Every structure is written in structure tokens, then in C-alpha cells.
């Protein structure tokens, strides 16, 4: 049984209609002892099926540890959203509820490769000289 009902699929398909560039959803999962790994894989695969610009790839956190390391994945379930390059956009945990909207919005942004930030923000960010990790903690509601 699909996780997304027909009404939601329709809505997501419409939201993804203007995605013109390929986006790859790299899903990192684990066979055992991972809450929501299976559901995350299913959910993301269902989303990927809603646009011909999207593809989903599944990796095992243990067996494909080198791939996981190359994307900086340190826990599962994880989704790396990759466009024409890896922008560093990651989701950890099942992208349900609020985070489902974030997933869809991320796909659209990554496809465009355009941050939409203000010129002031861009100028500040341009001053960075070393890698920075930002973590945003959220809950599904």
C-alpha cells in the first residue's frame, strides 16, 4: 500500500511540474535496527516516481559505507538531495509532516541551483573560508 494517497500524489506532481533539471535522491538505509528506514525509502521512492526528472538511489549505511562517507552521512535514515552538483542538502529521519514539505521544496531549489537568498546574505556567505555545518532540529508535526 502506498504511503502517499492519490490526492497528495496529485499535489506533489503539480509542485514538481516545473522541475526541469535532474535531481537524484540518494537514500541511505540499513537493514536492521533503524526506525523508519523502510518507510523513508518507500516514501522517497514514491516521490521520485512523481517526476521524470527525479531518480532515487538506495544505499545501505553498512554495506555502502564508503558512499555514505563520501556524502558525509553519519546516521540513518538519510536522504541526500543532489542536483547538478552536491549542494550539501541533507535530511535525517523520515521526511514526514512538516519535513515532507521541506523535501519537496528542497527538490525544487536543488533543481534550480538557486538559493533565493537576499544580496546581503549572499555577501555574508561569500566571506566563508572554511566548511560549516548547519543542523536544524525539528519534529514531524
Amino acid at each position: 500500500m502506498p504511503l502517499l494517497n492519490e490526492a497528495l500524489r496529485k499535489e506533489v506532481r503539480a509542485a514538481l511540474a516545473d522541475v526541469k533539471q535532474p535531481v537524484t535522491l540518494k537514500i541511505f538505509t540499513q537493514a536492521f535496527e533503524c526506525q523508519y528506514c523502510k518507510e523513508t525509502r518507500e516514501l522517497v521512492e514514491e516521490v521520485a516516481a512523481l517526476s521524470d526528472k527525479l531518480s532515487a538511489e538506495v544505499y545501505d549505511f553498512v554495506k555502502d559505507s564508503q558512499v555514505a562517507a563520501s556524502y558525509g552521512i553519519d546516521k540513518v535514515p538519510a536522504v541526500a538531495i543532489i542536483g547538478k552538483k552536491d549542494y550539501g542538502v541533507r535530511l535525517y529521519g523520515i521526511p514526514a509532516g512538516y519535513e515532507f514539505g521541506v523535501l519537496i521544496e528542497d527538490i525544487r531549489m536543488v533543481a534550480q541551483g538557486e538559493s533565493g537568498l537576499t544580496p546581503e546574505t549572499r555577501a555574508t556567505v561569500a566571506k566563508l573560508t572554511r566548511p560549516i555545518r548547519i543542523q536544524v532540529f525539528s519534529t514531524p508535526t
Partner: protein
Amino acid sequence: MLAHQLAIESDLITADMVEVTEFPYLGQKYDVMGVPRTVIDETIHIEGAVPESWLMKEFAKVLGKK
């Protein structure tokens, strides 16, 4: 999602959205009492959904640090 927009803007920024109930040890480590909570570079903590200008004021603090 502001953090992800920043990741797209800069090759030096990685942005993780973390569903904290699935990773309670991180909730403890970063003192997550309410969401969203943003942690920049392990040192800067921001409570709540803040506007871009506010986030960037905090973000600017990492610029001088090595």
C-alpha cells in the same frame, strides 16, 4: 528552509535537517527543548524559526573563527 538555501548558496555549507525524535541522543547533545533549533558550526544555537536577517547576524559570528 533557510539552512538548505544557505547550503545551495555556498559550497562550504552543509545543512542537515534532523528529525530529532528519531535521534534522541542528538536532542540531548544539543539541548533541544523546542523546535526548530538551529545549530551552526557546533557553537551557535538559535531557538525557533527566525527571519533570514536574524539568522545571518548569528551566522556572521562564525566568520572570524578558525
